[in-house]
């Protein structure tokens, strides 16, 4: 609640100051975001990979994407995990600070979209705090909430699998945060037109 007082005289990193100025204009794109994490506790767990696509004018812009695997050496070592597989893959790899900075640059003032997006945002906020930044300021939309609003169901949550099943979105055999982000983006397009969101 009183976070802003804590931050009042803080000197932010440059990319964060830049991010804050972007909110002077209104957003003209959506960014669909998905994170893969080591667990559900924002304070103890960390982000392992990030996937994001932009949605402009009711289309997913494939080129305008962000994907990264975060190299969490500390986490992996503490838990006795190997990072061999990650090292072998073709995916873009970045240490957490670089990845978070690139992501913040990528999303700008866009409206964030995700499945249970609040959790993703909490995870990002925790990472941002480690970089001496403030909390994300973007507006956010949750496809689960959108679906429940559409169908007027209040007593139940829908997993991403449930929703892709309902909207007959083709399943893929591979699983990554980019895959999830793409699926969420398709869901979002469908929900958006049904709910009449501009």
């Amino acid at each position, binding site marked *: 609640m009183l976070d802003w007082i804590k931050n009042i005289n803080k000197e932010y990193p440059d990319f964060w100051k830049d991010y804050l100025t972007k909110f002077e204009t209104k957003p003209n794109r959506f960014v669909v975001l998905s994170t893969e994490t080591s667990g559900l506790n924002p304070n103890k767990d960390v982000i392992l990979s990030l996937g994001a696509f932009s949605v402009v004018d009711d*289309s997913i812009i494939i080129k305008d994407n962000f994907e990264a695997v975060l190299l969490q050496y500390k986490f992996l070592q503490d838990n006795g995990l190997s990072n061999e597989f990650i090292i072998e893959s073709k995916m873009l790899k970045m240490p957490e600070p670089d990845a978070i900075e690139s992501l913040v640059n990528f999303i700008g003032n866009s409206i964030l979209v995700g499945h249970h997006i609040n959790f993703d945002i909490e995870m990002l906020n925790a990472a941002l705090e480690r970089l001496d930044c403030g909390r994300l300021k973007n507006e956010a939309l949750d496809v689960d909430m959108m679906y429940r609003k559409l169908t007027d169901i209040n007593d139940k949550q829908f997993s991403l699998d449930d929703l892709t099943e309902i909207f007959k979105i083709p399943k893929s055999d591979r699983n990554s945060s980019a895959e999830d982000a793409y699926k969420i983006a398709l869901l979002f397009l469908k929900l958006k037109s049904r709910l009449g969101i501009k």
Partner: protein
Amino acid sequence: MNTIAEHIADFLKEYPPFDNLTFQELSDIATNIRVINLEKHAVLFQNNDLLHDSFYVVASGIINLTTIADAEETIINKCHEGDIFGLRPFFAKNNYMMTAKAREESIIYAIPIAVFRPFVANNSDVLNFLLESFATNSRHTKDSVSSNGKMISDTSFYVDQQSEMQYIQSLNYNNSPLTTDASHIVKDVAILMTDAMMDNVIVCEKNRPIGIVTATDLASKIATGRYPITETIDKIMSSPVVTVIENVSLAEAQLLMLKHNVTHLCVTKDGTSKSAVKGIISEHDLIVAQASNPGVLIKEIKRSQLPKDLKQIRDRLSDLIQNSIQKNIPISHISNIVSEINLAIIKRAVELSILDLGSPPARFAWLSIGSQGRKEQLLLTDQDSILIFEDVAPEKYREVKDYFLRLAKRATSILEKVGYEFCPNGHMGSNMLWCKSLTDWTKQYNSWMNTPGENSNDLSSIFFDYEIVFGEPKIEEVIENVIFKNAVNNTLFFDFLGNDALKKNSPLSFFKKFIVEEEGPEKGKFDIKTRALMPLIDGARLLILNSNIKGIKNTYLRFKQLAITDSKNAEIYLSCAEAFLTLSKFRTVEGLKNDDSGQYINLREMSKTDKEKLKNALTPMKDLEELIKSKFQLTQFS
């Protein structure tokens, strides 16, 4: 690294022409794709839209490609997963010539042309594939190669579609016609025509067509020496020129040429002579043969001298109808052709009467009303007509009216000999009530529409379906304007028509059984005219008058047009349009079987599936009734 771009590349490489490209090339293309979701019935682009900067590949779902001709939507192709469409921007500069609409919820990849063009240039296989798809509109999916069971039914579907297309395909015609100015000299125009190797030239004034000169004109007016070759072109042109709208169908163009007895039609932007010239359709464009040629019948009608010749032709028309129904030609096209032939017969009957009686003393219009006015007469039914003559000096009135009554009596009795019975209610031009001057007719329509409750015995809704058969078109226009002027905000009139439309007896009982005649000669039969067709006809007329849409007389086309105008109720209108065709077909088949008007259907002779089909065609009536009730809040007369 872009995971999803690679997935899309994986998807694309399964389908031509992408299978000619390397995975790396496909990844580059996929990276630049936009992914679009289309809800059911959403339109991606439509006829005449500006070209997009992308072409499209169906990722999932089905997209229908359609064209619109004569207010009817025709499916040209269905695009399934992996099919490409919207290639027009590659090859042409003008706007889209078709509509792409999602048949079900679909996901589409939009591939920017700028990105794809280099691959086309460097790879002739890709270019050939695109050219071929663009030219033939045929399907190219990976399963079309393997001919499994599903594909066979698909193919036969397409064959069917092809034969129907003969009637509804849009015409290929010359869309860069030769034009000239009215002040040019015949010799120069003739040189122009010779150089361009054309047999016609359109004479324009500010790009609007005012006349046409054909090789025939040159032969008959110049070569005969009647005019010198130094005359200006407007002296020898034929005027006015018959104009049509773009996207006219083969059938429609053919009918227009027959109707106006011309060999060329001028295509203009909005179909009238008041807009820019777009092209010219010549008889040659229509020579594409048609199996049974109604044109021959019409030519013979024009030559007939005696009622019995006409009767013979009318009998042959019945055969033509029977054949066409067996060939499964769409009933809407059959009725178009039949109406045109009916029209020619009635016209000839009036002509023969004039030949007997001598020239009319004033201009007049002979209008067909009722079913012929709506162009949906398939069987020999009774005659319905009115006669309107121009206003004359009071002292001449009696004499003029006398002439027209005699004319009408003669014409109707010729038609009776041909086989059209007299109207039992006397709705004919030979009745002194329905043969009067333009002023009197205007008064008549005014009183019908403004005080519909009084003298309501006189008022039959068939007077609101009319088509000119013979005489002065301006008179028909005047009447049409009177009607539409009176219709505006005329609650009372619509109330009356609405109640009239709804008071017909319902076709099915509470238990969904057909309600049949309880007594009389038709006991036990189902009255398809009054119980099923009339409510649809009345409903369509009511709604079209209310929407202030002129010029659409046919019940089927009225519903189609309403579906376009009032899109929120489109589903109801479209099912009514379909139902109307189905019911008309039942009636026609029954009528041909018994050689009567087909009004009563003998249910006992019907197969079970036909009965079900008939019952299904009755279901949209309920929705239409509700729609009318809510739209007009019927109170005054109910």
